[in-house]
């Protein structure tokens, strides 16, 4: 499982350009799926089981990134952000373009060395010396370059958001011996720019219910207050976030299933941010949805950290939920 997570997190696929990660995931799920397809926006849709309740599980494949906006006369690449990338995370960072080319980020001189530059004052140096010899074109995307780190129970990587959700979905599919449901695991695109892949795939599938698998924030490092989520205390069952109120019946289903299976869980009340579940909930005439979150430190940094036990328990919870009949 850790090996697969390493492979998933070391793949570069910013929003809108998910083909690389889609290929990695497809290779894993092909032997496990009853049906596989890719839709108009690039979502990878896996069906397991047939005829029962239509359940949609969404985990997003894309990651935050950058996009080249101008190559200047000396070959420096100006850029803007794709999704929530903060300038303080970029100072001195290394990135890799979709084409595989690496680059390093620096900025125009600052008034004070302690200032944070605006994105507009930063550039990517790919080793070029002129516009002509710069191998990057306007519109090319890049993502953080950072190797996977195994600290034992704690695992660190770029794009843990949401490759960890992808991993939980894949491992749940693997663990699922049989199901009374018609389950659609959707590895969605473009979540980081506004849950767009989930919106269109949910419309296409028209599910009876569903949930997303995504990361949530944390409250257990110095100075963090008012968020009662810690690494290692179990997957989080979402009550609400900045864009969605989880359906109380879904919450009840998740809580009772976790308790029956004696799995640790946390109750998540997140003030900001949201997940694919928001888009799923509001599609067509509305869908009852919830979310299983994996607590994750340092979200949207190049070093996002999760606890391995939470990941394993999330797989157990999702597997238990999908193995048995559900009446909301």
């Amino acid at each position: 499982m850790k090996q697969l997570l390493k492979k998933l997190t070391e793949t570069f696929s910013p929003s809108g350009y998910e083909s690389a990660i889609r290929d990695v995931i497809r290779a894993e799920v092909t032997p496990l799926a009853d049906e596989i397809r890719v839709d108009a926006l690039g979502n990878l849709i896996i069906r397991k089981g047939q005829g029962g309740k239509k359940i949609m599980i969404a985990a997003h494949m894309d990651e935050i990134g950058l996009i080249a906006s101008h190559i200047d006369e000396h070959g420096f690449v100006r850029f803007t952000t794709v999704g929530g990338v903060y300038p303080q995370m970029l100072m001195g960072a290394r990135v890799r373009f979709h084409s595989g080319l690496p680059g390093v980020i620096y900025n125009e001189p600052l008034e004070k060395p302690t200032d944070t530059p605006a994105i507009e004052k930063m550039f990517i140096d790919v080793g070029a010396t002129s516009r002509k010899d710069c191998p990057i074109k306007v519109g090319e995307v890049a993502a953080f370059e950072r190797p996977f780190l195994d600290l034992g129970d704690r695992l660190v990587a770029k794009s843990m958001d949401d490759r960890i959700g992808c991993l939980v979905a894949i491992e749940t599919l693997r663990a699922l011996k049989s199901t009374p449901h018609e389950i659609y695991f959707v590895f969605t695109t473009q979540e980081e720019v506004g849950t767009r892949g989930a919106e269109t795939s949910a419309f296409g599938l028209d599910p009876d219910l569903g949930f997303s698998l995504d990361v949530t924030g944390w409250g257990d490092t110095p100075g963090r207050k008012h968020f009662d989520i810690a690494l290692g205390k179990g997957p989080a069952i979402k009550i609400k976030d900045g864009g969605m109120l989880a359906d109380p019946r879904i919450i009840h289903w998740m809580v009772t299933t976790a308790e029956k299976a004696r799995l640790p869980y946390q109750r998540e009340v997140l003030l900001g941010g949201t997940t694919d579940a928001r888009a799923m909930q509001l599609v067509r005439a509305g869908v009852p949805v919830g979310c299983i979150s994996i607590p994750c430190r340092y979200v949207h940094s190049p070093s996002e950290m999760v606890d391995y036990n939470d990941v394993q328990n999330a797989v157990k919870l999702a597997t238990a939920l999908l193995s048995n009949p559900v009446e909301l």
Partner: protein
Amino acid sequence: MPTITEKQFKLLEKLCNACAVSGDEGEVRKIILEEVKPYADTVKVDALGNVLVTKNGSSENKVKVMLDCHMDEVGFMLVADDNDGLYRFELVGGIDARQLPGKQVFVGKNKIPGVIGARPIHLTTAEERARKIPLDQLRIDIGPAGKARVGDRATFATQFKRAGDSLLSKAIDNRIGCVILIDLLKTAPAHLDLCLSFSVQEEIGLRGAKVAAHYFNPDLAIAIDSTPANDLPVHDGGENVFYNTKLGGGPAIYTFDAGTLNDPRLIRFLAKTGDALKIPYQFRQPGGGGTDAGAIHRARAGVPTVSVSVPHRYTHTAISLARVEDWKNTQALLTAALKGISPALLAEERP
């Protein structure tokens, strides 16, 4: 490559001088309905006021292509009557209030002339002149004899002009897209099912295109719009690295904006089409802003979508400026692209 005809210039002039602030697109809709009827298989005006046109192909394996342009423009709405022909107003769409004092406007369907007044220099202090005048201190003045009502729209009163190789108008955004769409209908290739949406309410949130795309449910879509060119020299003499697009650079193909990650297959296809026929094009700089593509690609189960815009300077001010050459090249690129579209274009997965 065909040049722009006098007839096309006349049509653009007529469309540009018509007033169609978001939600009140009737005047432009009327012109468009007359233009498209002889060439369309079906024409209808939907619940929101979009003009929806179809032109069915005749061959096998047709691709259903949606073309979109918005009919509406930014402007103003009267919100309170202060008596004596003075009206408080709100902005409709993105307008920089710093640019308003001293501008002429037309109010309502009868185009009552008015002015957004400004206090003369004689009666202001240096300190006051350095400050921006807030919107709530501005009024539209049509005089006591002027007939207007709260809820009426107003537009800049600028009249269309041709100046050598340039075009000047209040509504280049997006009447130039409307003209291009009308001409694409006239030259529709037989291997496509074309569906065209002349959309309402783009400037206030892509509202018309949202329902139009749901109605058509196309295989792919192209949103045709106009986008700022901020390509003037920078003050410190350095390199301008935030120009968005450049005038004279040809049609601007979108990769990424606030609303859309344009479909890479369609981006590549348009670029290849331009390369093959030596039609100049440029990539709009990735960044904020957006077009109807933002609504269209999210319709139903998703629609592969790309945006192409005509660059123009001074967007959303009283007068913006475009080049005839960019219009011509946008028309040429899109005409060629429509000819080249085949089912193979979408046979491969989105990269």
